[in-house]
């Protein structure tokens, strides 16, 4: 089975994130970048499917600046076999629709083809939460999203989808796209052997031209939507702080009453 995993490098949610004042895009230099946690789970799900299906191969597909290489290496050191990385200055500022189109083109160009595409359900930075489904729609394959469980059996994929609204069981014939939620698994740590092996695994870095994507279809200037202004919200300032002297609870109650909150 040929498995493709989409990964994305995002700013660490434990560090403070900034928007670039000049064009309203994410200031990716300002923060530590990490392999998005949910992507590690997608990689883990891919590796588990590979282990359950002899002769499978896992290809990592990523789009982003050069430093996305770290996230790709992490996925390879966990056990993925090879990677395709679309890296081109012209991609900067691409909107969700453009990003989905570029990813769909990239996935279609993976030479081993694909039976299943895995992705995290939602990146922690963009939070549009729709890119996996958008990619599936462009590929013309079913989207089985927010999977808490995924099994592949005889050419079809079954997913237990869990969201805030409830649990849905979905089924589809392969090829299909599956996005996973945080309950799917606990991702493995790369072993020393895995880290060493990752250094020899093939990573093909493509420019837009290499990938056959027209530069007029991507990037800030051609985006279908434009951020017209962005400003940091003035930080909330600290109010009153008191030491508890046995009446802390009563004092909070009095404050709530004074603010008409109870």
């Amino acid at each position, binding site marked *: 089975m040929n498995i493709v995993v989409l990964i994305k490098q995002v700013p660490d949610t434990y560090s403070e994130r900034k928007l670039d004042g000049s064009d309203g895009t994410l200031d990716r230099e300002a923060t530590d970048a990490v392999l998005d946690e949910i992507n590690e789970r997608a990689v883990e799900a891919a590796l588990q499917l590979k282990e359950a299906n002899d002769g499978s191969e896992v290809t990592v597909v990523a789009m982003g600046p050069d430093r996305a290489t770290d996230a790709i290496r992490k996925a390879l050191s966990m056990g993925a076999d090879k990677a395709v990385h679309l890296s081109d200055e012209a991609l900067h500022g691409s909107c969700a629709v453009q990003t989905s189109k570029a990813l769909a083109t990239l996935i279609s160009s993976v030479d081993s083809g694909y039976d299943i595409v895995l992705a995290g359900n939602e990146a922690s930075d963009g939070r549009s939460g729709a890119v996996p489904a958008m990619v599936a729609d462009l590929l013309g394959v079913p989207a089985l999203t927010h999977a808490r469980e995924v099994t592949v059996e005889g050419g079809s994929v079954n997913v237990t989808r869990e969201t805030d609204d409830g649990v849905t069981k979905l089924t589809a014939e392969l090829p299909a796209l599956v996005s996973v939620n945080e309950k799917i698994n606990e991702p493995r740590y790369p072993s020393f052997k895995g880290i060493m092996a990752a250094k020899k695994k093939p990573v093909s870095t493509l420019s837009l031209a290499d990938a056959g994507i027209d530069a007029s279809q991507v990037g800030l200037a051609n985006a279908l939507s434009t951020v017209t202004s962005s400003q940091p919200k003035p930080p909330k300032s600290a109010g009153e702080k008191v030491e508890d002297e046995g009446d802390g*609870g009563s004092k909070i109650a009095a404050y709530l009453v004074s603010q008409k909150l109870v």
Partner: protein
Amino acid sequence: MAEVLVLVDHVEGEIKKSTYELLTAARGLGEPSAVVVGAAGTAGKLADGLKAHGAAKIYVAETDSTDFLTPQVAVLASLVESANPAAVLISVSADGKEIAGRLAVRTDSALLGDAVGVSPDGVTHSVFGGAYIAEAKANTDHPVITLRPGSIEIEQADGAGAEQSVEVPASSGRSATVTAREPLVGGDRPELTEASVVVSGGRGVGSAENFELVEKLADSLGAAVGASRAAVDSGYYPHQFQVGQTGKTVSPQLYIALGISGAIQHRAGMQTSKTIIAVNKDAEAPIFEIADYGVVGDLFKVAPQLQEEIVKRKS
């Protein structure tokens, strides 16, 4: 006046309040047309509510298809083509975001996701948990806009609600099939993201058993219960109640943080709350930087006392 398509959000024929927010927002952009996709008889049940919130037209696409979300996408895509609307409005939810994204790629429309406000000029976003306010505009016709529930105040208005039935077009791509559905059974507490009061516990709560204290205070206030990532990671409370960058974003009237240090990870999920109360034994905890009222002390003493006072006031 141009039509504005509003996808009606309903669970088995029960309307979600967010639909009325969308209809209210739609009136600022054009003439609202509600789009009902569901089993036969759904539109009949919802029509009165839709008319009372200004739906000039109600498109009715009734189907017993078990295709997953594809009927909604296909119906909206065909209406975008036939009605050339000023915009398509959809509520932010797992399904809503997915329908919106797929519709945007099918109709080559801008996707303005997770907006907290809309105007003819564009939308307003609250970014990184409210640390930034950004304005964005569409560069295409019929942008697809998703609106965060709770961001628009519902206003009633009379609408003609002229019903027009539409076919569910055959979809070009393949679709997943729904084989079973179990709607989430909510508890007695309000839903976290919709609650006007939230009481959250952090690492300082110390154990799953101790979370009872958080729950009791929450119940005295009719509040939802939240938890910090540290508390969830320590197994004190289930993940679906996590407030923070990798959990839910909440913006209640009142947020009470018990034993939460206030790492950026957490603040990003609650800093837009109107009033923030913090109880922490560490006087240097960053949560105090954004708290309107903070008590440096032992939450195991302060929280029960507060709860008692609240109960006393209510009786």
